[in-house]
C-alpha cells in the first residue's frame, strides 16, 4: 500500500511537471497543454470533464490507432536532443522508421496493459497493470 502511494505520487508529479511550459510549441500540442493547465487551476474533476470533451472531439478525427502517429519533426528533435555528438544527424527515412517503432512501442505497452487488466478482471486500466508489464516490455525492446 505504501509503495503504491509513492509510485502514484511520482507519476502524478511527472504529469504536473509537463504543465509548467511557456513559449512556442507545436500548434496541435497547445490544446493538450491547455487541458494540463486546467488540472492545475480548476481541480481534477473540471479537468477530467473538459479533457474528455476535447478528447472525444479529437477521437472523431482519429478513428483507428493506425492514423495516429508521431510527427516527423517531433521524432527528429527528440532523437537529436539525446545525441552526445552534435554532428550526428538522422536521415529522413530513418526518422519515419523510428516514428513507426515508437508507435509500435506505445501500442505494445497499451495492449499489454489491457491484457493484464483483463486477466485481473478490472474494468479500468490502473498504474499497477502497467507496472506489471513494464519489465518484459523493456526487455523485448
Amino acid at each position, binding site marked *: 500500500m505504501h509503495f503504491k502511494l509513492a509510485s502514484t505520487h511520482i507519476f502524478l508529479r511527472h504529469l504536473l511537471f509537463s504543465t509548467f511550459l511557456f513559449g512556442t510549441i507545436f500548434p496541435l500540442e497547445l490544446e493538450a497543454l491547455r487541458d494540463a493547465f486546467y488540472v492545475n487551476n480548476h481541480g481534477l474533476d473540471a479537468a477530467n470533464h473538459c479533457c474528455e470533451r476535447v478528447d472525444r472531439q479529437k477521437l472523431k478525427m482519429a478513428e483507428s490507432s493506425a492514423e*495516429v502517429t508521431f510527427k516527423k519533426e517531433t521524432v527528429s528533435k527528440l532523437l537529436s536532443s539525446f545525441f552526445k555528438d552534435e554532428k550526428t544527424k538522422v536521415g529522413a527515412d530513418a526518422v519515419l522508421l523510428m516514428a513507426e517503432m515508437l508507435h509500435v512501442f506505445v501500442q505494445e505497452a497499451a495492449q499489454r496493459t489491457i491484457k493484464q487488466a483483463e486477466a485481473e478482471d478490472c474494468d479500468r486500466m490502473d498504474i499497477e497493470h502497467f507496472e506489471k508489464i513494464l519489465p518484459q516490455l523493456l526487455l523485448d525492446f
Partner: protein
Amino acid sequence: MLSTTSCRANVNFREKMATAMDEEERKLQRLKAAVHYTVGRLCQSIGEDHQKEFSRQVIAAIAETTFRQCDIFAKDLEAFARHAKRSTVSVEDVKLTARRSTALSNFIQRKSEEIASANQEQRDTRKKIAGKRKNTEMVLP
C-alpha cells in the same frame, strides 16, 4: 578593483550557464509534452477499440517510459552510425535497433521496404512530370 571585475565576470558566466541550462530544460519539457500528447491520442484510440479506458496516470507513465526509451534508442543509433564511420543515422541503424525481437525486426523490415518503394514512386512521378515539361518546352519554339 581587479577582484570586483573578476567577480562580475564570474557572475555573468554563471548567469549565462544558468540561462543556457534553463533553455535546455524548457526544450526537454516541450518535447516531453509533445510525446505525452501523441501517446495520449494513441492510448485513447486503442482504448476505444477495446471499449476500455486508460487512467491519466497510465498515459503519463507510458509517455514517460516512451521518452526514456527514446533516449536508449538515440544512444544506440548514434553508436551504430559512429561504428559505421557515418555521421548520419540511416535506415540500417534503425533496423539494428529492432534486432531483439524477431516479430519486431520483421515488422520494421516490411515498413522500411514500404518507405523505400514509396520514395521510388515519388521519384518516378517527379521524373515523369519533369519529362513532360521538357517535351512541351521543346515543342513550342
